């Protein structure tokens, strides 16, 4: 509000810095090696703070000095009457200011302020949306620390490119707003107008755009730009994000024949089926390491990877390359039947990504073609016994299991093996039931459905758009659960202060401890001299580290993840994709392109041809 009298954007920038600096005042000096410092994003904030203290601070002092003369005159009257040490305090400080003025250099140039990395990027990204005073206001509106309150600036329609789901032709496309929803619209010369629901709520879409942020660069670009996105994947130089999660499909064979399968796997003979060798998987892992340096997560998938005879060696090979999170994507049948399998995964430190679609027979029959509830329960119990952590992966389809979302989360928080649920609207690629592209599920419908089924635990704004990929791809929340109550973390902390806890990860569970530490850090308690033992009284005299660890260990993540298919492919979104298939020739192909732009068929055909020669 004050900014209206300060239309100069550079001044507004100073306000951003000063705001960030405020928080630093609440922290003890010299705590730079605290647990949060290790995290990159927080490091940026930290940098902004230091900067604010040095540059913004001087700016403010300088501005204050301009008024000092007059104000000192005006204040003299009451000051003489008040008497006492307060006045001396005040006057003494004025002396300091004068001294400071003599010593310190002029405030840094505005250009330097603009370049500061932590505080500026979001404002800069939105800068073109507003101009003059209004733009300055937005920029001064503290995107960095108070995101929930930030006015929305993204506007529809947005031009992009897509494909024809019928013939694969590349088409100009646009995202438009209609009836409060966001629709991806294009026209194929051959097949006419094509529309599909891109996001279920245009207001939420705009809000999510605030969480977009620049991607990171992979170390290697394996392919050149030739035909244009999405046909040059590998990764090509146009791609705007590194790969958080690499997927290796080790086979096409499966022990189920699901009516829903984007990978078109099955039990019968597949003319273009394949089963990779351990050596192939090792070379693919090496390619991933070469592209990422230190990959964060890899998932072995299929087909059904657990039936591959060398699957444990493959998982061990991933672990041996220092990849912290190695996941096995499985339907759970081998886990349920083979008593040795879960302990073997436990010994390797593998996380299980378990297909888990609901509880009702109708759900299982519609999505999996078989009643699998007993199998899932047995698989989970074996994982719990073996100390294997599990994420439930739920394919959600309109009219089939939308009503089971709440029950799945309730089951998950109670089961000792489960630490998260990933809801994935069914992608209409490969095998899938008949559907209406304008009435499909997006993250919005999934989250709304869940909140309606579990109103005592969740509401829509507990879910944060994950800024790693395109922010409408993935929304997540992390909740603390103690066996009785469940509290979503975004209600406890200003999420934007701890964006890291859902940032930069396809499986964003690494920074929660930091956010929790921040929740009870010195700054959260408000004093300037708090230490760990002082914090005890904050939370009712409980020994915090132990209690927090106990609660955090029962923390639970809920993610809605909307993958694209031929109907919903939006090239602008695809460029930011951070989940990718690693293929045998070492290319890394964004998952949604792999499924919808012909790569899967091409890779299978290549492997089949290679096997026959």
């Amino acid at each position, binding site marked *: 509000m004050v900014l209206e009298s300060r239309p100069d954007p550079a001044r507004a920038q100073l306000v951003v810095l000063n705001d960030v600096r405020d928080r630093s005042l609440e922290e003890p000096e010299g705590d730079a090696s605290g647990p949060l410092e290790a995290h990159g994003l927080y490091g940026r904030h930290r940098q902004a703070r230091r900067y604010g203290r040095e540059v913004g601070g001087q700016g403010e002092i300088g501005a204050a000095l301009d008024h000092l003369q007059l104000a000192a005159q005006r204040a003299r009257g009451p000051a003489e009457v008040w008497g006492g040490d307060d006045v001396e305090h005040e006057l003494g400080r004025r002396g300091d200011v004068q001294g400071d003025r003599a010593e310190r250099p002029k405030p840094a140039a505005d250009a330097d302020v603009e370049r500061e990395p932590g505080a500026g990027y979001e404002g800069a990204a939105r800068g073109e949306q507003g101009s003059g005073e209004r733009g300055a206001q937005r920029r001064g509106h503290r995107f960095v620390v108070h995101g929930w309150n930030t006015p929305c600036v993204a506007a529809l329609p947005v031009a992009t490119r897509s494909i024809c789901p019928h013939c694969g032709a590349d088409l100009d496309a646009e995202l438009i707003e209609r009836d409060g929803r966001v629709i991806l619209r294009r026209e194929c010369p051959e097949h006419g107008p094509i529309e599909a629901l891109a996001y279920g709520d245009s207001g939420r879409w705009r809000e999510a755009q605030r969480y977009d942020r620049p991607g990171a660069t992979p170390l290697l670009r394996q392919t050149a730009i030739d035909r244009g996105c999405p046909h040059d994947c590998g990764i090509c130089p146009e791609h705007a994000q590194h790969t958080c999660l690499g997927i290796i499909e080790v086979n096409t064979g499966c022990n189920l024949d699901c009516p829903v399968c984007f990978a078109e796997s099955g039990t019968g003979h597949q003319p273009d089926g394949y089963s990779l060798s351990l050596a192939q998987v090792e070379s693919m892992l090496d390619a991933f390491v070469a592209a990422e340096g230190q990959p964060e997560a890899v998932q072995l998938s299929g087909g059904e990877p657990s039936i591959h005879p060398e699957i444990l060696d493959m998982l061990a090979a991933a672990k041996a390359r220092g990849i912290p999170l190695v996941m096995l994507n499985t339907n759970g049948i081998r886990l349920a039947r083979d008593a040795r399998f879960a302990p073997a995964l436990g010994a390797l430190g593998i996380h299980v990504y378990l297909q888990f679609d609901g509880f009702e027979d109708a759900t299982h029959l519609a999505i999996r073609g078989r009643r699998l509830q007993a199998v899932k329960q047995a698989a989970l119990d074996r994982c719990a016994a073996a100390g294997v952590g599990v994420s439930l992966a739920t394919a959600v389809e309109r009219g089939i299991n939308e009503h089971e979302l709440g029950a799945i989360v309730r089951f998950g928080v109670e089961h000792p093996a489960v630490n998260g649920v990933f809801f994935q609207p069914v992608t209409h690629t490969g095998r899938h039931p008949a559907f209406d592209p304008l009435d499909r599920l997006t993250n919005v419908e999934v989250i709304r459905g869940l909140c309606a089924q579990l109103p005592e635990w969740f509401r829509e704004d507990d879910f944060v758009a994950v800024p790693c990929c395109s922010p409408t791809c993935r929304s997540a929340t992390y909740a603390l659960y103690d066996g009785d109550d469940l509290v979503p973390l975004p209600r406890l902390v200003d999420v934007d202060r701890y964006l890291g806890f859902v940032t930069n990860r396809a499986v964003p569970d690494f920074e929660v401890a930091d956010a929790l530490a921040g929740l009870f850090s010195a700054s959260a308690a408000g004093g300037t001299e708090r230490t760990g033992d002082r914090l005890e009284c904050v939370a*009712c005299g409980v020994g915090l580290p132990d209690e927090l660890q106990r609660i955090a260990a029962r923390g639970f993540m809920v993610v809605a993840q909307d993958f694209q298919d031929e109907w919903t492919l939006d090239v602008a979104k695809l460029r930011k994709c951070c989940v990718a298939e690693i293929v045998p020739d070492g290319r890394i192909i964004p998952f949604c392109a792999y499924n919808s732009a012909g790569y899967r068929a091409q890779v299978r055909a290549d492997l089949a041809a290679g096997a026959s020669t």
Partner: protein
Amino acid sequence: MIADVSLHDLETDPKRCCARLYESDLARWLLDNQLHPGGERLTLRLARLAGVAPDARVLDVACGSGATALLLARELGCVTVGVDLGARAIEQARRATPAGVRASFLVGDAETLPFPDASFDVALSECSLCTFPDKPQAIAEMARVVRLRGTIAIADVTADPDALPAQLRTAAARVACLGDAHSADAYAALLRDAGCKPLAIEPHPAELRAMADRVEARLRLARMLAPPGEQRERIREATALARLAIDAIARGNLGYALITARV
């Protein structure tokens, strides 16, 4: 919930009890260090409505540990003085004052302000008038220490008292800023009674809602962390109170408003 405050204090000396409560670590933690709804954004909005000029003399009544006085001094370049009944809060505020920021703090009572007449251009009071037992006296004091044609700026919880459930009107709710809240019109009437001319009433219920949500969630976490027994029970009661407040906000019976008046 009210860790440092005994119920005896609450009945005999609610004003002092209140000041001490808001000094407490628990209260700060529950409120995420934001002792009033809307945080700095609404503070700056209030200052703008009050027409705080760069070199104005501004008094913050019930300043707590000085966040508002420091913010205004720093952002607007005014000279601020904070008064609070809590000695510890004043001490904290002094310690938090960086060199060069023209803010000073002293212990004092809102109903007998330790300043001569017409000492200030603006007197503001954020989220505290509703906790003062003698509101007309507090407003009269603000009017006295502000110069003629200066401004009084109030940010406070507003309530439709008759529509609030009984639990929200008890003494415990009073220190939580809810129990003795008036409607915005009633605050304006109090200002008028003190000889001031009300200028603006700006409602901000969403900011109160966000704060109540934060408190409710943190109480629930505190319950998880507390050992079973009496402490958990007390937290549970406080949580129930927070939920009643959230319901009342949703129904429009409880809100938050910025109110300014000319002396």
